[in-house]
């Protein structure tokens, strides 16, 4: 429980999001383009961080499905900014020792003739601390 409280405060601090502002309307999840890819959806990220139930989020691949497209941020009626919560949980996960989801060694295999640098750079930034 103590650990949860610490984690919660950490996520709130990194994201600078006030999860209490959420009125649980679900518009973030309604608008999310990656909904079907995710085990936990944007509204659950907000709700679970608020209650301190964070470990399941840290363990979930959902972290790496968020596109940071910010549709949930701009459409949230309460200004909660769910994408920033996802981002904060993701950072918490990949900042751990050895938790990088992608390494520089993985990159060459990904390069195809038409792969734009932007794709690799973005993925690298998202998956690596």
């Amino acid at each position, binding site marked *: 429980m103590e650990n949860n409280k610490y984690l919660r405060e950490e996520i709130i*601090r*990194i*994201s*600078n999001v006030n999860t209490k502002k959420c009125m649980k309307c679900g518009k973030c999840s309604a608008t999310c*383009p*990656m909904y*079907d*890819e995710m085990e936990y959806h944007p509204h659950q990220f907000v709700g679970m961080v608020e209650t301190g139930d964070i470990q399941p989020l840290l363990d979930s691949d959902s972290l*790496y*499905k968020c*596109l*940071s*497209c*910010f*549709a949930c*941020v*701009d459409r949230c009626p309460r200004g909660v*900014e769910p*994408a*920033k919560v996802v*981002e*904060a949980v993701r*950072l918490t996960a990949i900042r751990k020792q050895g938790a990088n989801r*992608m390494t520089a060694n993985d990159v060459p295999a*990904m390069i195809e003739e*038409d*792969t*734009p*640098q*932007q*794709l*690799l*750079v*973005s*993925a*690298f*930034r*998202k998956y690596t601390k």
Partner: protein
Amino acid sequence: MKVSYFPGCTLKNKAKDLDMYAYRSAEALGVTLEEIDEWQCCGGVFTSSASEVATKLSSVRALKATNDKGQPLVTVCSACHNVIKQTNYAMQNNPEFAAKVNRYMAADGGYNGETEVYHYLEMLRELVGFDALKEKVVNSLKGKKIAAYYGCLLLRPNKVMRMDDPENPSIMEDLICALGAEAVVYARRNECCGAYISVESPDAAKKNALAIIENARAAGAEMIVTACPLCKYNLEKCGADFPIVYFTELLAEALGVKEDTNGKQ
């Protein structure tokens, strides 16, 4: 008019067209793009957490270099624009973050968000003007039905980007009309293409991209224009077989500068 220009990694590699046509069109419009010396990659995505500092330094360096020259900073790639504008906003509005950044950059001198950041489209709208642009059009694109694709990076978060109405943008449509073509409006023009998810889940990215193209096609579009190399890549990869074109190419075509003076494309 001279402006500082941040091309970004992709424009110097896989998206050379986007870059080249941007240069040629700007020149035709009386704007000189001065590439920033020794610019570094923006990182592709802006990390929204203020606790991330190091990843944002390349953007700050570009902003500072521009400020030292007293010019506005222009970007073409949606991702570079998003990262740099968000970084600049954080420098203006988050003193704690700005102080940290300035400690890292002590050797380079201070920076506090003074630079004005324009996307190339904003430059056309605000520094050139669509009416003035219209007068410079030599090959009108009349008869073409073109759908603008914004994606997410140009518009969101609106609090920072301030480019247009994030739900009903018109800046690219205004450009398309200024070039003489017909702008096709469709609802998915501000939905995400799938971005970097195509590395891990190409099918998910395809689903997104396909929905966007089908929506544009159903609205009567013959081609989609975009400002972002990654958007172009995802839209082309989804298997829809639909022409996706950089807006600068269209602009260069209309301004009659698509081919350089040697007749080379």
